[in-house]
């Protein structure tokens, strides 16, 4: 990061955050939104960083309507704090990102990081039902609402989800939450890709299937007790402790990348990773995480293969020099011009995360 002592701001309200953002934008200062800092290595090193705008004091649960199974929170709340609030009502948000704990909700929405449970529940893209965003002109704009089904106006949640804070700073969000499953069993096997496919094709679909480069497969089944027990006993795998998932979520290599690919291409692509590098994958989703020990050229070669198969290779963290050499994102999409125009409409002076995202 080309940084000369950026100012650190920790606003205590959405309004204050919006005002700080407006003032910074008016002065054409570069603003880097910061949540829990877990994904601060994501993206290309910003061209400038004048203000670090922290959301961590925006950490309230605004409303948890238990009977509606809807929760509204400020963006700076950590995922763990949100989960413990939901747990009081036997509910949870099915999101289990890597490099946990410490992610903020806003950070997870901005980066689009997900975890193993995505297989069954999708990503927050699927259960984010409302969003409030501070824009560089100081406006606070809301999209969606607090109902689980809503087609009132454009889907502004999708516009900001995964946009790495490049159009605005997320200050609050509402989610559809889920009841804790009646039964939750995890089993493991050392059988590699074949075992993963076996788990994926059980009649009661698994909620998570994770495969590691050492051949270990973890499969998690959620549902009614008899159904889960029948499927699990049919598999004849070893039962695993539930804590394996928490351990897995702590995975946070120093240099790593996320590979996404059409499901059917993932095995072949992962098979061409450098022999001694570790990885783990969600074969049912089409995502793999690569723990990079190889050199920058190998990463570029790998990215070329992944992109040729219709996928993406995004660097999640790396030493700055390595990141510059490889580039965080890879080939820009063909629709990049449209994205640039959207960026311009929301952030005309380019003050938000300049140079970090693809727009």
């Amino acid at each position: 990061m080309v940084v000369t002592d950026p100012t650190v701001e920790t606003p205590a309200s959405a309004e204050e955050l919006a005002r700080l953002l407006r003032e910074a934008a008016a002065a054409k200062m570069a603003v880097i939104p910061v949540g829990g800092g877990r994904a601060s290595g994501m993206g290309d090193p910003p061209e400038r960083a004048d203000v670090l705008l922290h959301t961590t004091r925006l950490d309230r649960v605004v409303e948890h309507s238990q009977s509606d199974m809807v929760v509204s929170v400020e963006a700076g709340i950590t995922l763990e704090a949100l989960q413990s609030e939901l747990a009081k009502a036997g509910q949870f948000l099915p999101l289990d990102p890597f490099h946990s704990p410490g992610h903020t909700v806003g950070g997870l929405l901005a980066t689009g990081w997900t975890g193993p449970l995505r297989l069954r529940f999708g990503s927050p893209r699927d259960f984010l039902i409302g969003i409030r965003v501070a824009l560089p002109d100081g406006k606070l704009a809301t999209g969606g609402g607090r109902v689980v089904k809503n087609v009132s106006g454009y889907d502004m949640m999708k516009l900001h989800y995964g946009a790495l804070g490049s159009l605005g700073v997320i200050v609050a969000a509402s989610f559809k939450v889920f009841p804790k499953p009646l039964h939750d069993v995890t089993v493991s096997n050392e059988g590699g890709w074949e075992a993963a496919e076996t788990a994926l094709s059980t009649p009661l679909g698994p909620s998570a299937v994770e495969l590691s480069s050492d051949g270990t497969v973890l499969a998690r089944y959620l549902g009614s007790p008899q159904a889960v027990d029948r499927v699990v006993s049919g598999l004849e795998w070893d039962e695993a402790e539930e804590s394996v998932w928490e351990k897995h979520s702590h995975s946070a290599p120093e240099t790593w990348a996320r590979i996404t690919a059409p499901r059917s291409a993932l095995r072949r692509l992962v098979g061409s990773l450098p022999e001694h590098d570790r990885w783990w994958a969600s074969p049912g989703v089409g995502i793999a995480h690569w723990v990079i020990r190889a050199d920058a050229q190998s990463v570029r070669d790998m990215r070329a293969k992944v992109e040729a198969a219709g996928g993406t290779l995004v660097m999640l963290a790396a030493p700055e020099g390595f990141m510059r050499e490889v580039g965080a994102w890879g080939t820009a999409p063909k629709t990049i011009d449209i994205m640039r125009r959207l960026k311009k409409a929301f952030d005309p002076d380019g003050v938000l995360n300049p140079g970090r995202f693809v727009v």
Partner: protein
Amino acid sequence: MALPRAVIEELRRVVGRESVIDSANDLRIFERDGSIEGAMPDAVVLASTTEQVAGVMKVAARHRIPVVPRGAGTGLSGGAVTIRGGIALQVTRMRGILEIDPVAMTALVEPGVVNQELSLVAAQHGLFYAPDPSSQKACTLGGNAAENSGGPHCLYYGVTTNHVLGMEVVLADGSVHWVSGDAPDRIGLDLCGVLVGSEGTLCAITKIKVRLLRIPPSIATLLAAFPSIESASQAVSAVIGHGIVPAALEMMDNVTVGAVEAHYHAGYPTDAGAVLLVEVDGIAESTRELTAAISKILAANQGYAMREAQTPAERELLWAGRKGAIGALGRIKPNYYLHDGVVPRSRLPQVLSAVGEIGEHYKLPVANVFHAGDGNLHPNILFDLRDRDVLDQVEAAGEEMLRAVVELGGALSGEHGIGLEKSAFMPWIYSEDDLNAMHRVKDVLDADGILNPGKIFPDPSRRPVHLAGRTGLAIEAKWW
């Protein structure tokens, strides 16, 4: 206002002479969709390919002529109505299922494919397409994607946007783009997610890649009667509160049940204040276990006359009553106005009693059919168009019902869209800044405003809302 001959000729050069309709008599067929208000297009263009759609858009862009993409015209919010005239761009000739990939569990379809047809074809591979609007026998997948349609089974499976993996779209300038695709987490902004549900105001959709799901091996469908809507609503909350999210959880009120039973003889108990239709799917162990648990919960919440469909034919019959409910209401009055709103689920009893009071006030019978699990209500105002001034009354009653929805923390539409019908009410739920942010997206993608003009955003030139004086309440009550 008729289009200049030269423009008609340009359009004919794009799609062929026979595929441009401009005679007043023929245009009349395209005056309406499933909503209340109609308006004549100046021309209808029947496109067969992406290139033709792009060519039509280019002609329209050059002459600044409005273009309204149109599928089967079953929409209920006026999305396909050419309120500012111009071209109705009919895509129903684009009805190819181009590819079904049983391994990746995806399908690539053209926008004119009928929703149910995809599931019928996918069934050969043991797969189905989950979003199932009640109009699924007629509505198109292009229209579904444009409106982000829902359906009874969206409670568990999610709405259209959760199942669209990518789209080929034509923008207002006639350029053709693919947005998103097979791999998750594309680079850059999620244009696909923004375009789904944009109601034809941002693009015309020419191809859609959708996710298919495995047909569950076992399905159980339960019907239960309740003395009142309150007790049925309580039962719904109890089921979900117990940790069970059924595939579908539908409610019908007494008025609807009476009409349905007279028409379908599905065995609905006509003395009930409300009837719940609950469906769970999965493997046999799971449906058996869940059905037993649900039955117990329903019984504990005053449920009675419970029945489980014993055969696929019985299941079909139970669903025929629900999906055909709107048609059956024709027994009561010849015309209906089907509304759509969503409230937090726990507010269902409150909103329904408000709906009942509003109906009484206007002396209009109201029948309620709704997706109870989602809090998505569909009050159906029944009337006879031959009665004098009735339409004004119907619209006023509908507006008050929506107002009640919003005041209880709800949203203007769960699945029908804003379209023409509800654009004036948008300031009830969104501030000027909220709407301005949405409009920035519109301006980027369609600076001249030729795609489906007059929809979604409030149009000051149109009739103001009756309840404008109370505007602002909802915004103040907002949760942020």
